[in-house]
C-alpha cells in the first residue's frame, strides 16, 4: 500500500542515517520511536517494526554476522520447501476435482511425469495417488529443515547484541581510533565499518605474529 511506503519515507531505516545511540536503544528496549524522522509525527508501530527489520538486516550484513546468514538460509529453505509442497498439494487437489493443464504442467515441472490421462479415471487417480505418496518426502525434508531453523532461531535469540556489547566495542574502538567515540555522533554504518576495520587489522596482526 502506498500509505505504508509514504510513512516508511518518514522513518530512518538505513544504517548510514541512524545514530548508534538510537540503534542501541532500539536493540535494548525494542522501542523503535527513535527511528522517526519527525518526532511529532505519529507513525504506527508496525511501520517502525518494518523499518527496524530493514535496518537490522543491513546491520547484520555490514557487520558480517555469520549467524544471520545461516538464519536467512534456513528460513529460505523452509519456506521454499513449504511453497513447493503447497503447490503440489493444491495441484493434486485441483486435478481431483477437474482436469487442469496448468496443474499438470506444475506437477511435471516437479518431475512427476505421469500421463494424467483423465479419460482413464482409474489410471488418472493412480497417478494422483502416486504424486501424493511421493511428495511426502518433501514434507519430511521441510520438517527437518524447520527443526534446524527453529534451533538456530532459538540460539540466535540469546545472542542479540546488548548495551554491554556496544559499550565494550566502543571502548575498544575508541582506543583503536585514538579518540573517544560518541555513540550520539557516529552512525551505525560507521560503527560497523570501524568494527570491521579493527577486526581485519587484528586478523592481520595475528597472522603476522603467527
Amino acid at each position, binding site marked *: 500500500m502506498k500509505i505504508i511506503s509514504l510513512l516508511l*519515507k518518514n522513518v530512518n531505516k538505513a544504517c548510514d542515517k541512524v545514530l548508534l545511540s538510537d540503534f542501541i536503544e532500539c536493540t535494548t528496549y525494542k522501542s523503535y520511536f527513535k527511528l522517526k524522522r519527525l518526532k511529532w509525527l505519529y507513525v504506527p508501530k508496525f511501520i517502525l517494526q518494518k523499518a527496524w527489520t530493514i535496518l537490522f538486516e543491513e546491520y547484520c550484513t555490514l557487520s558480517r554476522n555469520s549467524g544471520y546468514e545461516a538464519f*536467512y538460509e534456513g*528460513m529460505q529453505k523452509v519456506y521454499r520447501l513449504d511453497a513447493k509442497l503447497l503447490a503440489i498439494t493444491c495441484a493434486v487437489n*485441483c486435478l481431483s476435482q477437474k482436469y487442469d493443464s496448468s496443474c499438470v504442467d*506444475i506437477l511435471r*515441472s516437479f518431475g512427476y511425469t505421469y500421463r494424467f490421462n483423465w479419460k482413464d479415471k482409474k489410471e488418472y487417480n493412480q497417478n494422483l495417488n502416486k504424486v501424493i505418496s511421493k511428495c511426502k518426502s518433501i514434507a519430511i525434508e521441510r520438517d527437518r529443515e524447520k527443526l534446524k531453523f527453529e534451533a538456530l532461531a532459538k540460539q540466535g535469540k540469546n545472542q542479540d547484541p546488548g548495551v554491554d556489547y556496544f559499550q565494550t566495542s566502543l571502548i575498544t574502538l575508541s582506543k583503536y*581510533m585514538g579518540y573517544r567515540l560518541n555513540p550520539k555522533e557516529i552512525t551505525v554504518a560507521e560503527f560497523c565499518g570501524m568494527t570491521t576495520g579493527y577486526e581485519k587489522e587484528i586478523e592481520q596482526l595475528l597472522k603476522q605474529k603467527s
Partner: protein
Amino acid sequence: MSELIDKVIDEQAITKQITFLDSQLIKAGTSLGTCADAAKKFMDQFANAKGVSDVVSIMSEYNKTLLQAQKAQTEISVAEKNRADKLLVLQKVQESNAKTELINAQAIAATQKAQEATTKAEQTRADAAAKVAAAAEKETKAEQELMSAKQMMINILTKEGVSVDKMNMTKSQASTINKLVATANGAEKGSHEQLAAQYDLNYKAYNKLSAVQKDTTAGKAMLASIGEQSKALKGMEGPMGNFTRDVGNYKNNILSALGANQGFIGNLANMAMGAEKTGTSFATAGVGGIKAFGTAMLELLANPVVAILAAIAAAIMLVKAAIESNGEATNKLNQVLAPFKELLTFIMSIFSQLVTVILSGVLELEKFANVIMSVIPGLDKLAEKNLQAIELEKQKQKLAADMRADILRDAKEEVVIMENRNKARQKDKYSIADRLTFLKTADAMELALSQDHVELATRAFNLKKQQMEEEGRTYEMLTKDEKDAYVNMEAEIYKAKSEYFQKTTRLKSMQATLVMEDQQDQIAVVESSNKLKLEQLKTNANFDNLNSKQKIAFNKKYSDQDIKDQMSLIKAKENLAGANVEDLQGQYDILLTQLKQNNQKMSAEISSYNIQMLQKQNDSNLLKFQSDHNYDTMTFEEKVKYDNDYFAWDQQGKQKVLDLQKKYNKITSDEYRIANENLKSEKKIFITQQANTMIQQSELLLSEQKSYLDSQVKLDQDYGNKSVGYQQEITRKLFEIQADLDTRLAEEQYKNNQIDIVAFQTKLSNIKAQRAALLEAQKTGSENDERTRIIALESDTSVKRRKIQDDLYLSGKISSLEYQTSILKINKDGSDNQLAIEIWLDKEKLATLREGSEEQIKLQQKINNEEENLEEKKANRKIHAEKELQKKIIELIKASASAIQTIGDDQYQDKLDKIDALKTANSDAATKENDEITKKLNSGILSQKEADAQSAAIDAQKTERDKQLTAQENEIKTKQAIFDKESSAFNIILSTGEAIMASVAAFPLTAGMPFAGIDAAIGAVELAAVLAKPLPAYAFGTLDHPGGPALVGEVKPEMIQTPDNKIMKVDVPTIMSLPAHTKVFPDYDKALQEMAFNASIRSMYDSVPDIEISTYNDAMMRKYMGSLVGQTEKQNSKLDKLNNLDKHLGDIANNTRNLEGVLKGLKKNPWFS
C-alpha cells in the same frame, strides 16, 4: 396435490443444491489451481529472496495464498460430504416421486375416463331422446287406436243403448287416460317407463270398463293390446329379474310357483317330508293355507301391512325351500316375493322421506325395517339385498347428516377463523409470535375445512358408485340427470381439491405478507428510534455551545453512529427483500417447473440418450487413438505432440457434444413452447393461471423491492458523498490548523532567537560597561580623594534626590507623609557621607586644638570611633560590590564558553561536511569517468583492455583520494574530540573558579586564601560533578527526562507529560521531581496544538489501515497522502530554515570572540592563578 408439489419442490431443490455443490467443487478446484500456480511462483521468489526482510515480505503474501488454499480445501471437503448426503436424499425423493407420478397418471386417466363417460352419457341421452321420440310416435299411434276404439265403442254403445251417464263416465276415463298419457310423455323416462305407463293406463282404463264394454270388440281389442304390452314388458323385465309385472296376476303367479311347477312342489314336499313331524303338517297346512290365502291376499294388497303379513305367511311356508334353494328356486321365490319386495321398497321410500324430515328417526325406522326383515327369515336373499340397501341407505343418511353437521361446524369454525384473523391483525395487542400463531390456527382450520369438503365429496362419489354397483347399474344405465349428478359429484372432488390447493398457496402468501409487514414495522420503529437517539445525542452534547475541536469530535461520533445504524437497517431491509423475493421466486419456479416437467422429460431422455451415444463414440475414438499410440515408447517431442493431438481430439468431441446439447436445448424449448400452448386441461390451465398470478405478484414485489433498493442505493450514495465531503472538510481544517501552527511556530522561534540575540548582546555590553566602571573604580586614587569623591557624589545625589522630592511635594504629586518618608530614607542613605564629612570637619577642628588638651583627646577619640564605623561600612559595601562583580563575570565567562564551544563544534562540523562533500564528489567523478570509458568502449574508441586499465587507474585514484579524505576526517574528528575534552575541562575550571571567587569574595579582608585553597582542591571533583550533572533546566524542553529533579517553567508556561500520560501546566519557575522518560514541551499552547494534530492524524490513520485505498476513497486518500507528504516536506524545509538560524549565532560568535581578550585578562587575574 400439495404433497405432489412438496415432492416436486424437494426434488427440484435438491437437484439445484447438487448442481450448486458441483459448481462449488469446480470453483474450489479452480481456486486450488490458482493457489498451486501462486505457490510455485512463491517458491521461486523464496529461492531468489535477498535477505530476511525479503523472505518476510514474501511470507506475508504467501500466508494469504496458504489460507486461501486451506479455505478451498475445506470447502471441497464440506461440499463433497453435502453432495453425497444430497444424492442419497435425491434418490429417495425420486423413488417417492415416481410413485406420485404413477398416482397422478392414474388420476389423469380417471379424468379422461370421466370425460369419455360424459361423452358416452351424452350419446346415450341422445339415443334415449330418439327412443322417447319413437315412444311418442307409438303413443300417438296408440292414441289414434284408442280414439278409433272409443269411436267403435261409442258406435256400439249407441247401437246397444248405453246410458249417457255411463258414456260420460267413459269420457272422464278417457280424459284421465289422456292426462296420464301426457304425464307419461312429459316424464321422458325411456321406452320402458313409457311402455309401462302406457300399459298401466290401458290396464286401468280396461278395468274401469263394464263387463258389457269388455265384451265388445273394442274391449277385446284393448285387452289384446294390453296383453301384448304386458308381454313386451315381461320380455323386457324378465332378464332384469323383475317380476313385478306379474303383480296383477298374483294368483296365477302363486299357483304357478306352488302348484304348476311340479319340481318346485316336489322339492317342497320333500322338504316337508324331511321336516318329519312338524315339517309335514306345516308344509301341508302351509300349502293349503297359502292356496286359499293367495286369492284373499290379492284383495288386501292395497294394505301394505296385510301384504307383509301375507309375505310372512308365505315365508314361513317356504323357509326350507328358500334355505336349500337353487337358482331356479330362487327365481321362483323372487317371483313370489316380487310384490313384497315392491312393498318393502315402498316402505323404505316412506322411511327415506321421513328421514329427510327427522334424521334421528331413521335408525328407529331402520330398526323397524330390520325387524320386518328379521321376521321374514325365508327372505334371506331378499333380506340380504335389502340389508345391503339399508346399509347403503344408512351410509347415505350418515353422509347427509355429516353434511348438515359440516354446514353447522363450518359456520362455527368460520366464526373462530374470523376471530383468529382479527386477532392476527391487531398489531398493538399481540406480539408477532402470537399473531403468527393466530394466523396459523386460522389457516389450519380453514385447510381442515377444505380437507373435509374433499373427503365429503369423495365419500358422496364413492357412495354413489357403491349404490350403482348395488343396483347393478353402470354409468350407461343412468338417466340424464343421474349422469349429470354423477359427473358433478366427481367434479366436486376436483373442485374441493383445487380449493384446498388455492387456499394453501394463498395462506402461505398471507403468512409471508404478515411476517414481511411486521419486519417492515420493526424496521420503521428502529429507524425512528435511531433518529431519536441521534437527535438526543446532539441535544445532550449541547452541540451549538461546543468549540470547533469538540464539534469535529462530536460530528465524527455522530456520523459513525449514523453510519452504523444505517448499515444495519439497510442489511435488515436487504434480508427482508431478499427473503420475500426468494420466497416468491421459489413458488414461481415450482409452478413453472411443474409445467415444464412432463414436456421436458421426454425430450431430455431422447437428447440424453443421443448425447450419451455421442460421448460413447467420442470415448471410443479417444481409446482407439490411445491404443494406436504407445505412449511409453515415445520421445518427449512425440509425447507433447501426442498430448496436443489427444487434447484436440477430446476438444473436438466435446464440441460435438456441446453442439448437440445446444441443438436439443433449442428443440426442447420449442417443444415446451408448443406443448405449453396445447395445455388445455382444467388442471394445467389452473396451474398456469396460478403461475401467472404468482409471476405478476413476484414481478410487482420485485419491482417494489428494486425501487426500494434503488432508493437505498441513492441514499447511500448521497450519504457517502456527504461523508466524503465531511472527511475532506475535516482534513482541510486539520491542514489549516497545522499550517497556522507551523507558521506561528516558525515566527515564534525566529522571534525568540532575535530576542535572545539582542538580550545577549545587551547583557554583554552592560557587563562590559559595569566591569570597566568597577575596574576603573578599583584603580582610582587615594582614600581622601575617594572619600571626597564619594562624599561629593553622595552629597550630590542626596541633594538631587531631595530636590526631586521637594518638587514632587510642592507640585502636590506626593503627600506629606510620602515626602517625609522619602526624606528620611535619603537621610539614612546619606548618613555614611554625612559621617565622612563630620570626620573630615572634626579633623579640621582637631588641627586647631591644643595638643594634649582634654578637648583634643576627646575629639581624637570621637574621630577614631567615627573612622572605624565608616571603614566598616565601606568594607561591607565593597564586599557587596565585589560579589556582584564576580557573579556577573562568571555569567559572562559561562556564556562565552558556551558560545565558543558552539562555534568550535560548528567549525568542526563544517569541516567534516566539506570532507563528506569531497568524498561524494570524488565518487561521482570516478563514476562519471567510468561512464565515459564505458561509452568509449561501446563506441569502439577504446579496446576492452584499455578500458579496463583506465578504469583500474581511476579506481585506484579514487581509493587514494578517499584514503586521504578519510585521514583528514579522522584528524578533524580527533581535534574535535580534543576540543570537546578541553571544553569539558574548561567548564570544570570555570566552575571551580566560580567557587573560588565566591569564597574569596566572602572573605576579602583575608584574601580568602584558606577557603580558596580548600575550594580549589575539591573544585575539580565536586564542582565538575555538579556541572557534569546539572539540575536539568528545560527551557527548550525534552522528550526523555532521565528522572529526578528538574527546573521547569523558567521562561514561559511549559507542558509536562509524564510516562503515564498525565499532562501538567507549569507557568512559574519550579523545581520538580519528575519520573524518568517524562516529556517537557517548552510552549504549552503549541504542545497542545501538536497533540491535537497528532491525535487527529492518529484517529484518521487508525481508520485507514484496514481499508484498501482503492475501496475506501482512492481519490480522497491520494489527495490526503499527497498533502501529508507535502506537509512533511514543508515541515522539513521549515526545520531547515530554523537550522539556518544557527547562522545568526555566527554574529554572536563574532561578538564573543572579542571576549576572548577579556578572558585572557581574566586568566591573568590573581584569582585564577
